[in-house]
């Protein structure tokens, strides 16, 4: 299985990537106007109290010293203390990571469940009314902003129909799944619009391809030609498209978690930005970066598994 050998040394290539991300997030967070010490203590705090807080969190040091502390802590497996929650950022993230991962997974699964059948329907009826409907809907789907779509879904399924909970996350697995359907769908609807268009194009090309002609020439019925030969070949580029969109997808969770009040990383990030909680923002940004890099690795593994010609080693 030497084609999968890249899994072993790909993580080493992550080091410079992560280093770069750490610099960028560190600097960007400090460019946000506002003084964290004043936000913690309020507008009427005395200069001494402010100075104490700054000293406590190391905010009075020059920026490069702060960065070195940040790196040193990172090496020790710490990301500093949250000024708002007063606990270690890593511990904080650990409690928030599950809902976000579950949301991303739900969004990917739902978007494939939507995109594959619709693309198949559309491609096999190319140029006919079904195809036009699918294409119009998927073009429109790209246009709907997630925050609007989320609210509309809540109004329809939760308020009017009462099928699904309005917001929150729940405790048991069943509850969690129930709570994830609407937010997952909110992201999936936009994502599946992109996937449908790419899959449809791949399937149409596949139906006209020499591979399909050869399969028909050996007497395979159209259903087998489509699902056994056309679809697997069309899925390969779609996996890559998904991987490219993963950054966008994680960005989407920030908005959607706020709309649906899901206690995940996105919500944490928004609160961290509002309270100038530098450590939290840095920590979440780093975690998102690591997640993006890891998901791309996963996509590469999937590509290699789907397409025997690909050799990344």
């Amino acid at each position, binding site marked *: 299985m030497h084609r999968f050998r890249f899994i072993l*040394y790909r993580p*080493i*290539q992550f080091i410079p990537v992560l280093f770069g991300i750490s610099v960028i997030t560190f600097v960007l967070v400090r460019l946000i106007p506002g003084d964290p010490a004043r936000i913690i203590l309020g507008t009427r705090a005395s200069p001494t109290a402010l100075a104490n807080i700054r000293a406590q969190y190391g905010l009075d040091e020059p920026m490069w010293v702060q960065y070195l502390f940040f790196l040193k802590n990172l090496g020790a497996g710490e990301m500093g203390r949250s000024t708002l929650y007063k606990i270690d950022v890593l511990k904080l993230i650990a409690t928030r990571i599950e809902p976000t991962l579950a949301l991303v997974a739900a969004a990917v699964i739902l978007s494939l469940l939507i995109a594959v059948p619709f693309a198949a329907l559309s491609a096999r009826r190319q140029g006919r009314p079904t195809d036009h409907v699918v294409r119009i809907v998927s073009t429109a789907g790209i246009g709907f902003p997630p925050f609007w779509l989320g609210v509309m879904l809540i109004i329809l399924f939760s308020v009017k129909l009462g099928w699904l909970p309005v917001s929150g996350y729940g405790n048991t697995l069943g509850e969690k799944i129930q709570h994830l359907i609407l937010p997952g769908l909110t992201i999936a609807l936009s994502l599946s619009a992109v996937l449908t268009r790419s899959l449809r194009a791949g399937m149409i090309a596949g139906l006209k*391809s*020499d*591979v399909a*002609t*050869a*399969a*028909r*020439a*050996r*007497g*395979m*019925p*159209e259903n*087998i030609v489509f699902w*056994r*030969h056309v679809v*697997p*070949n069309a899925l*390969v580029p779609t996996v890559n498209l998904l991987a490219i969109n993963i950054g966008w997808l994680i960005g989407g969770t920030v908005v959607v978690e706020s709309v649906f009040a899901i206690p995940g990383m996105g919500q944490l990030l928004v609160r961290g930005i509002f309270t100038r909680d530098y450590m939290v923002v840095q920590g979440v940004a780093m975690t998102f970066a690591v997640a993006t890099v890891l998901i791309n690795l996963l996509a590469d593994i999937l590509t290699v598994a*789907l*397409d*025997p*010609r690909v050799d990344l080693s």
Partner: protein
Amino acid sequence: MTTLLEVRGLSVAFRDHAEERQLLSDIDFSLGKGEILGLVGESGSGKSLLCRTIVGLMPSSKLHLDAGSVRLDDEEIARLPEAGMLRIRGKKIGMIFQNPTSHLDPVMRIGDQIVEGLRFHRGLGRTEALEEARSILGQVGFPDPARGLKSYAHEFSGGMRQRAMIAIALACDPEILIADEPTTALDVTIQAQILKLLMDLRAMRGLSIILITHDLGVVAQTCDRIAVMRHGRIVEQGEKRQLLANPQAAYTRELIASHPSLPDEEHRPLEHERSHVRPIFEVDDLDVAFPIGGGLFRKRRDFRALKRVSLQIFPGETVGIVGESGSGKSTLARAMLGLTPISAGHATFDGSVLTLEREATLKRLRSEAAMVFQDPFNALNPRFTIGETIAEVLRTQGETPPERIRERVGELLDMVGLERNFAGRKPRSMSGGQCQRAGIARALAVNPRVIIADECVAALDVTIQAQIIDLFRHLAETTGLTLVFIAHDLAIVRNLCERVIVMHHGQIVEEGQCDEIFRSPREDYTAALIAAIPDIDPDRPIGGTAVPAELQPA
């Protein structure tokens, strides 16, 4: 001989709201049991469409079967519904295609593609089907069938892929095999092997074959009967020997006359005095290596595309460089023009050493040498008219005054035998031959002393090939142009060039006067290449053997 397939009065038209075109008109032919019928014609003659129509796989819904019948074993199949055709396709009629690479499913194992048909048509279980598939792979010449089953198409060479295609097509033991240009994409020696295999399979299984090809040489050596197609009609058909010896239709005579395997006696290439002239190209111990693999954690390895190549080309000469794909002939041409980095050795152009005075030599090369490419369409900018394409070169070169450019474009078009109004046309509205003429006109625009033509007729029909060759010959004779003609087709080189250089695995294996080399090659490799040339003489056996040279998957 019992008749297996009978086609009568078949007509197919393209029809949509805007236009109607007749693509096949009144086709009649029959195929006997165990017979090989050669269907010959140039691109666009309708030969592929005919075969797709027979199996009910017309490539567009705008094509309509207007008239005619197709009888297979006395059953009418021309208008059979899809469900009925499923038990004909693959089971009674198998098909193989020109490009095995694009017709094999890249993400499915070869074995699974064979098993698929066996399970569907013969209802075999997976284990039985795999066993059967293994035996078929053995029959088509896979040295290790068990391993072949588990391999993917990209692991094999072109010839082995075509064998895999044949195995898939023959899995359900069809009575008829339709082979659509099965060897066109292959090297001559591999072509000979595949043709031999088809003939062996015919002998073993009593298979009937319809062999579609543009190359009369291929049919002459394999088929029993020949049908010549043009513009959607069969212009002539008959027993092979009779048809070749005594062609009735003017088009058949033209096809036979255009075939490069016929030595062209009236155009013997001129011999040039070479001893006291400075060579225009001189290559000394040239090495070109490309890095392969390599990365952060692995050592870089080099693929040596050229190994210690030395040659001289003299002004006014017409030199052919021949070899199979991967032999390094294109790399050599690119290295001589400074288009690819040289790893070791020297390349000299008319006294300037490319490796020493790179900038100066490149400058001279750009204005004194030109290249003509294989794919005439893609070598031209689709958004430019031919006039703009040529004018661009003239402007860049800056030797033609702007007010003279229009006139010069016209002259260049005259030189290559294109009407002057082609200056206003775009490649899309031109045929392959016309595009190639335009490509040559562009090459001539710099008024070069040398033209390097890289497989420039490989993509063209034989009659067009013959015209382009005539054009080159005319240019060489009238303008004193030096021509380096790279080709895999030895027959063409024999007709055009005075000297030939044979390449194999990045090395020159033999060089010398064309006549001598073709008459008495010194090297076995050259002899094998020459023997593999499809010859229009039906009594010459196909060269090569049925045993594949490259036995292992790559």
